[in-house]
């Protein structure tokens, strides 16, 4: 049991880890997408604003010439700082005509599209990142419009930090939920394992705990409990049976001992000794018979011999057995009647013959002289029924259910040849055929029925 717990623990760890890795990866992917998309949107926004300004300003140039353009730039400057906007218009010789930049930045060719620059801000040593675009105007002047990218980079950094935080939170959360979930599962399993351990150490009356929630764990627990009920039943039957066996074999064995002792008594004639011998042999035969029947019963209960199943015509089987018993019956003034028929079933022919012969012998033991024993064959739902009915005194209702228990005989003078195993064997054979053994009083008489499943 310890090993099971250990491997459960291992599998719990694996489960938590797997769910953690999976959910973290998923969150990371989503956040990366958010980050990239946000970044792109802001960049393209900046660009479209800048190119709109460039277009607007070059329109102004076309309409009003360089002076008009210079005026337009000057108008925009007061608000430029708020918008992080940068402007520069230079003349044909590169002299600054208007704008808030000191001079044309090195390495920038007008009209070459987007550029990212590091420019010194004012007279300070502080460099700021700039995104800018420029055009060359028809009169040879150059115009540059840009945006201070510092704010954007700061936003970028904040975004990145939030993404990392979100990722960490997701990771921690998945760790927590994984642990909680598996702890829930594990605690139920541990209940089961503990109960099983206690059962193993001998307390067969214990059952798996139910929480009354009707969930899957409760369902498994109640299935296990059914199994435990059945096992406890079987074990208590086994105890009763072994007690009965011990009791039942003790009597013939002690009689045997007496016979053997009697053999060595002096002064016996050969004839007397022969009688003692015959009696001793009889006791041994009885013991052997009991053992044989017990073997048959346990084999049939275990379902051994099912591989020998073949199609059996019950009517034919009944007629064969009846033919064997007919002379004995007619000696006792009993008539045997066979009625009904059924479709062939899959069955163990020799054992079915034996079961029927046990039922028939049982009926003949109680049937009054001049009466009839009826052997009926019929179908009832998924079962084929073989019943034997006598017109004897029947059995007290309270004893009906006990009939099929081993070593139960209602015969007050239990004869040597009747150890009370015949009907137990019949019951075992019916179980082997997926059926049951049923006995009921018919006033008058007892009807014993062998129920056989038509298809297993």
């Amino acid at each position, binding site marked *: 049991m310890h090993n099971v717990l250990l491997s459960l623990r291992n599998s719990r760890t694996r489960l938590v880890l797997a769910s953690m890795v999976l959910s973290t990866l998923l969150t990371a992917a989503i956040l990366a997408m958010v980050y990239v998309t946000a970044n792109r949107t802001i960049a393209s926004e900046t660009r479209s604003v800048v190119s709109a300004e460039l277009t607007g300003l070059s329109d102004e140039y076309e309409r009003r010439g360089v002076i008009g353009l210079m005026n337009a730039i000057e108008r925009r400057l007061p608000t430029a700082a708020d918008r992080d906007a940068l402007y520069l218009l230079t003349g044909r010789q590169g002299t600054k005509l208007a704008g808030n930049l000191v001079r044309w930045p090195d390495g920038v060719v007008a009209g070459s599209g987007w550029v990212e620059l590091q420019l010194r801000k004012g007279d300070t040593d502080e460099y700021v990142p700039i995104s800018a675009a420029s055009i060359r105007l028809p009169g040879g002047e150059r115009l540059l419009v840009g945006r201070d990218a510092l704010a954007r980079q700061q936003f970028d950094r904040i975004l990145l930090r939030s993404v990392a935080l979100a990722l960490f939170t997701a990771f921690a959360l998945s760790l927590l939920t994984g642990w909680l979930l598996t702890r829930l599962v594990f605690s139920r399993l541990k209940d089961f394992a503990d109960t099983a351990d206690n059962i193993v150490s001998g307390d067969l009356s214990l059952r798996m705990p139910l929480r009354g929630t009707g969930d899957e764990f409760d369902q498994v627990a109640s299935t296990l409990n059914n199994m435990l009920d059945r096992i406890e039943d079987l074990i208590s039957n086994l105890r009763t049976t072994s007690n009965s066996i011990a009791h039942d074999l003790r009597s013939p064995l002690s009689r045997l001992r007496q016979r053997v002792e009697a053999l060595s008594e002096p002064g016996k004639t050969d004839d007397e000794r022969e009688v003692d011998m015959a009696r001793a042999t009889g006791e041994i035969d009885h013991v052997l018979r009991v053992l044989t029947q017990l073997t048959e019963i346990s084999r049939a209960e275990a379902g051994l*011999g099912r591989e020998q199943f073949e199609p059996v015509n019950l009517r034919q089987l009944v007629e064969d057995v009846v033919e064997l018993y007919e*002379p004995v019956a007619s000696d006792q003034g009993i008539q045997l009647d066979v009625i009904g028929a059924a479709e062939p079933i899959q069955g163990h022919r*020799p054992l079915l013959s034996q079961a029927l012969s046990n039922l028939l012998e049982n009926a003949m033991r109680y049937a009054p002289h001049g009466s009839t024993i009826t052997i009926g064959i019929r179908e009832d739902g998924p079962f084929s029924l073989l019943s034997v009915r006598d017109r004897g005194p029947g059995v007290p209702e309270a004893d009906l259910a006990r009939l099929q228990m081993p070593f139960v005989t209602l015969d007050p003078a239990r004869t040597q040849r009747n150890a009370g195993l015949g009907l137990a064997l019949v019951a075992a054979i019916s179980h082997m055929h997926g059926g049951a053994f049923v006995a009921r009083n018919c006033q008058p008489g007892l009807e014993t029925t062998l129920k056989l499943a038509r298809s297993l």
Partner: protein
Amino acid sequence: MSRRLLIVEDDEDTRDFIAKGFSEEGYVIEVASDGREGLYHATDGGFDAVVLDRMLPGLDGLSLIKSMRAAGVKTPVLMLTAMSAVDERVKGLRAGADDYLVKPFSFQELHARIEALLRRPQESEETPSLTCRDLEMDLLTRKVTRSGREITLTPREFQILEFFLRRKNRVVSRTMLLEGVWDYHFDPNTNVVDVHISKLRRQLDEDGADPMIETVRGAGYMVSDA
């Protein structure tokens, strides 16, 4: 010529008990105490019959018999088994044994069965008629006469009588009859077989005639010539 019998049995007491019994009956005995040794002797040939234990060290009885039959050895085999369950008995017969006997058994029963196995080849199924003293049995017309008087038998009675006549002068046990005539491999509690025999006897024996079927105390029945 004396008959040769192979006994494959691991239990020394049982082996000696069987060997001693058959020696006294004039058989030549070979013994083997495990499955492999048994198979070696059995395939070596020259035996008229084999007494084989079901449970053996080395190679169990069922496997031994299968190997033996696979090697084409047709020597009749009687299987001894401590497993008395009906389906175990059937299994033994299906594996190729010609007969089986459940332990513990009386030597008389074993002897009767071995004798029956040995007689098989001589009394072929094609024999048109069987006789014993003044009794005649025509297997084709299914007519039975005793001293010329015709006797009407039921099909089952005919079968029982045929079973006896094919094992003339040999003891036939109740179990042998149940197995051979009815094909039942269980032991009924009542005296069913005896009642069938006494019914048959009433048919066969006219007033004052010598009884055709003798009772052999503690063993069964016998039909004999003398």
